[in-house]
C-alpha cells in the first residue's frame, strides 16, 4: 500500500509542475496584461493612463520581463519561501488575500456539500426503491427544477424577493450591523440567517445530479441475489438496504469524491458574484478578468493541487470501499 502512495506522490509533483506552467500560460493567452486591463477600466470611467506612468508601473510589476523569467521567479518564490507573489490589483500578498476569504469559502462549500448529500442520498435511494411511485416522480421533479433553473437568475430573483418583502440585507453574509463586528453568538445567528440562501441555491442544483446517479446505481444493485440472501436470513428491508446494496452503489460516488475538494476551495463563482459573498470565487473571476497574474496563477495552482490530491484521496477511498479493487 505504501509503495502505491509513494508512487502517486511522485506523479503528483510532476503533474503540479506541468499544471503550474500551463496555468501561467493560460493567463497570458488573452492579449495585453494587467496594465492594459487597468487602462481599460480607467477608460471605461473616462480617465486615461499616460504612457509614461504606464512604463513605470510595467517595471514595478515586472511585466517587462519575458514570461519565463516571471514564471521562474514566481515558482521559486512559492517553493522556497511560500511567497505566492503580490496581487497587482490589491497590492497585497496573494496568500493574505486568499486566507481572508478561505474561512467563508470553506464554510459555504462544506455546508452546501453536506446539505446536498443529505438531500440527494435519501431521495436517490427512495426513488430507486419505490420506482415509478408518485413520490418518486415528485421528488425527482423538484430535484431537477433546482438543476434546470440557471443559478444566476435564481439568485437575483430570490435576493430581490427576500430583500423586498422579508427585509433581508442585500448581498454579503452579514447584515450591516454585524459585518465588522467581532465574532459573537449574535453574529453567528446573523450569519446563519444569510447563509441559507446561497446554500439552498447551490444545493438544489447539486442534488439533481447526485439523485440520478444514486438511483441508477442502486437499481442495478437491488436485483442482485445477495440482496435475496440477506432477506432470506431475516434482515429487515431497511437494514439490508443500507448494509448491502447502498454500500455497493456508493462506489461511483467515491470515484468522484476526490474532485469535491477543489470545489470546496473555489466555491460557486456565479452565485457568489450575484449575492456578493466574500468567498474566493469572485476573487478568482476578477483576477482573471484583470489578468492579475500572480493572484490568478496561484489560485489555479492551488486548485489543481487540490484536484490531484483529491484524485489520490478518491483512489484510496475506492480501495477501502470496494475490496475487489484493492486486491488487484
Amino acid at each position, binding site marked *: 500500500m505504501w509503495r502505491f502512495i509513494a508512487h502517486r506522490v511522485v506523479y503528483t509533483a510532476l503533474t503540479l509542475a506541468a499544471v503550474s506552467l500551463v496555468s501561467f500560460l493560460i493567463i497570458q493567452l488573452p*492579449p*495585453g496584461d494587467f496594465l492594459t486591463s487597468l487602462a*481599460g477600466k*480607467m477608460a471605461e470611467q473616462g480617465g*486615461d493612463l*499616460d*504612457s509614461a506612468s504606464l512604463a513605470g508601473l510595467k517595471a514595478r510589476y515586472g511585466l517587462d520581463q519575458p514570461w519565463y523569467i516571471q514564471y521562474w521567479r514566481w515558482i521559486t518564490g512559492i517553493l522556497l519561501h511560500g511567497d505566492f507573489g*503580490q496581487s497587482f490589483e490589491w497590492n497585497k500578498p496573494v496568500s493574505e488575500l486568499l486566507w481572508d476569504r478561505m474561512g467563508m469559502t470553506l464554510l459555504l462549500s462544506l455546508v452546501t456539500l453536506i446539505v446536498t448529500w443529505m438531500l440527494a442520498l435519501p431521495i436517490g435511494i427512495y426513488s430507486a426503491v419505490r420506482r415509478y411511485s408518485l413520490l418518486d416522480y415528485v421528488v425527482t421533479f423538484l430535484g431537477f427544477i433546482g438543476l434546470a433553473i440557471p443559478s444566476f437568475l435564481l439568485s437575483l430573483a430570490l435576493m*430581490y424577493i427576500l430583500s423586498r418583502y422579508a427585509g433581508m440585507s442585500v448581498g454579503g453574509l452579514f447584515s450591516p450591523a454585524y459585518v465588522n463586528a467581532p465574532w459573537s453568538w449574535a453574529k453567528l445567528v446573523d450569519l446563519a440567517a444569510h447563509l441559507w440562501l446561497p446554500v439552498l441555491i447551490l444545493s438544489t442544483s447539486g442534488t439533481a445530479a447526485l439523485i440520478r446517479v444514486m438511483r441508477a446505481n442502486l437499481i442495478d444493485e437491488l436485483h442482485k441475489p445477495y440482496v435475496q440472501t440477506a432477506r432470506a436470513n431475516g434482515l429487515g428491508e431497511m437494514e439490508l438496504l443500507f448494509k448491502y446494496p447502498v454500500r455497493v452503489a456508493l462506489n461511483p460516488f467515491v470515484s468522484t469524491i476526490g474532485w469535491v475538494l477543489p470545489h470546496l476551495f473555489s466555491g460557486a463563482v456565479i452565485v457568489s458574484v*450575484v449575492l456578493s459573498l466574500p468567498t474566493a470565487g469572485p476573487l478568482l473571476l476578477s483576477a482573471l478578468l484583470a489578468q492579475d497574474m500572480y493572484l490568478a496563477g496561484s489560485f489555479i495552482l492551488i486548485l489543481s493541487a487540490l484536484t490531484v490530491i483529491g484524485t489520490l484521496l478518491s483512489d484510496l477511498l475506492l480501495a477501502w470501499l470496494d475490496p475487489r479493487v484493492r486486491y488487484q
Partner: protein
Amino acid sequence: MISSQRALGRAILYLSIGCGVLGIPELTMRAALAADYKEAPSLAKEVAAGKLPPVAERLPTNPLVVKPVNSIGSYGGTWRQALVGASDGLLERTIGYTRLVRWDPQWTGVVPDVAESYSANSDGTVYTFKLRKGIKWSDGTPFTADDILFWYNDILMNKEITPAVPRWLRSGNDPVVVSKVDDETIQFSFKSPNGMLLYYLASNIGSDILAGSPAHYLKKFHKAYNPDVDQLVKAAGAPSWVALIQAKVGNWQSPDRWRDAARPVLDPWKLTVPYTGTTQVVAERNPYYFKVDPEGNQLPYIDRVTYDVMGDVQSVILKATNGGLDMQAQRLNSLETGMVLAAHREQGGYKLFKVQPAWSNGMLICLNQTVKNPVLRQVFQNKDFRIGLSLAINRDEINDILYAGQSRPYQAVPRPGTALYDEKLATQYTQFDVKAANAALDRTGFTKRDDQGYRIGPDGKRIAFSIDVQTARKDHIDALELIRKYWKAVGIDMQPKPIESSFAVARMLANDQEGLVWIGGGGYDFLGLLDPKWYFPYENQSAFGSAWGIYYQNPKDPNAEEPPAWAKKQQDLYTELLKTVSDEGKLALMRQILAITGEEFPVIGTDMDPDNYGVVKTNFHNVPDIMPDTAFYVTPGPTNPEQYFMK
C-alpha cells in the same frame, strides 16, 4: 508680450471673481466668528475627556467657510453607499476630494481649498500657493510647506518610487521645481509656460500630491529616513520597501491608498475599516477638518460613511430600490437603471438628482485611419466615405430605441451651453438621408456592388471591416446592430465585435483595431481641454488615428506614424494651448482645433448622451439638483459632501 499681459490681467480678474463669489462675504464673516466655533457632539465629549484639544485649536487660523447648498445642517447620521469589486473609485470621489485647489460646484472654475490663496506669474511659469496657517493632519500633526517638499523631493523625484514624472508635472522633459518660500508658501516653477496646472491639481489626477505629503507618517516607510524599514516590509509581506511605500501613497488610478486605515488625511472623514473587499468599508469624522459652515460649525455634518462591497451592479441597484443607499450616483448612472430607480421612489424613500454626463456624445464611431490593412486605410481616409456613413445612420430611431426619446442627434463635439459649443459642428451630417449617403459614397469611387449589394473596394473585394465594442456596454452593442443594418442598406459590410474593455485598450495600444465605438469624452469646456483625444490624434486612445496619437505622445514609439498636415497643425495648436495661462487663450486655441475637426470630420457621432440619475434619500439634504458626471470632475467631490446632512 502685451497681449499676454492683458490676458494675465483678465485671468487674475477672472479668477478673483471666481473666488470672489465665495471670497468677499467670506472675509466679513470670518472676523465675527473668530471666537465661538462649534463642533460635533461626539467630538465635544472627547474634548471634555481631554482626548482632543478644543475646536479652536484644531481649526486653522482661518478655516475655509463652505456655503451650504440649501441650509445650515445638523450633526449626526451615517451616509450609506456601495462599491463593486476590488478597484472601485467611489472612496476617492466622495471622502477623498481634498486638493490644494478644487473645482467650484458648477465646474466653471478653480477655487481655493487647502491653499488659502494662489497666484501665477505673468507667463504662467511660476505658481505660488499660500497654505492655511495652523491646518493639521487627521492625527493632529501640523501640515506645512515641508510636507509638500517631502512629497516633491522624496516621492516624486525619487527615481525608484516614481520612475517617470507624469506629463502634467513636466514641461517637455524638464520636471517642475517645487520650492518653499516660507512655512506656509510653496512655489511650482516650470521651464516653459504651463496653462493647465490648476486644472490638473483640481481633477482626479491631482490627488497624488496630498496623498504623498504626510511626511511624518511616510518617513517610516522610506529607506532614506528609516534604515531598518525592512522589518515593516517583511511584516506587510511586500516584495520591497518601494512597493510598500507606493502602496501607501497609491496613485489616482487605483484605490491602494484606501487599503490603509492609518494614513493621515486632510479629508472630512478618515478611514476606520479599510477597503479589503470582504468587509464593509467605514470612515468616521476627521476631528481636525479645516472647514466650517457660515455659523462656525466645524464640518462635516455627517458622523460616519459606510461602503458595502458588492459583487455585481444589480445588487447595488437593488440596495438603492430598497432604500439602502442614502446618496449615490456611481454605478446607478445608466438609462436602464434610471427607469428602475424612477419606478421605486416611494418604496425606496428617495428622490432623484440629475447627473449630467460630461460626454460629448452617447456613442461615437471611429474608423481607424492608421489601420494596418492598407485597403481599409485608403477607404477610411476618404472624408466622403465617413460623411456617407454618417448620413446613412437613422439617429432618431436610435434615440427612440436606446434613449427612450430623451436624447437628440449630435456629433462628437462640446455640449450646448458650453463656451466651445458650435451649432454647425454639432449638427453637420446628422440628418438621415440615404440618397445623400449613397451620393457621398459614390463620390469615393467605390460604386460597383457585388451580388449581395455590398460595394466593392479598391482591391476588387467587398469593403468589410469589424468595429470593437465593449461587452459591458449593452446599449452600444444594440446601436451597432442597428447601424449594421443602416450601412448594409448603402452597401457597406460592418461586423460588430464585442470584446472585454481591457482587450479593446490592448488593441488600441498596438494600433490593431479597424474600428471602435466608445463614449465621447470632452463634452464640458474644461474636460475638452483636459481630454481632447476625440478632437485630434492626442494619444493611442484616439481610435480614429491611433498611430498618429502615439506619435504625438512619443514620436519614437514603434507604432507611431507621422500624422497628415491637418492633424499635425492640431497637435501644434494643442502644444501651444498647454503653454497658455489664460482660459480665454486656451479656449480660443481649442476653437481653432475644433474648426479643423469639423472640416476633416474624423469621428462620426450618433446621439447626445441623455442625463442620468442618482438617488438621494428624503432625509438627506444639501445635495445640488444637478451636477456634472465624469472622473475629471471627480463627481460628487466638488459639491462639498462635507456640508451634506441628514435629519
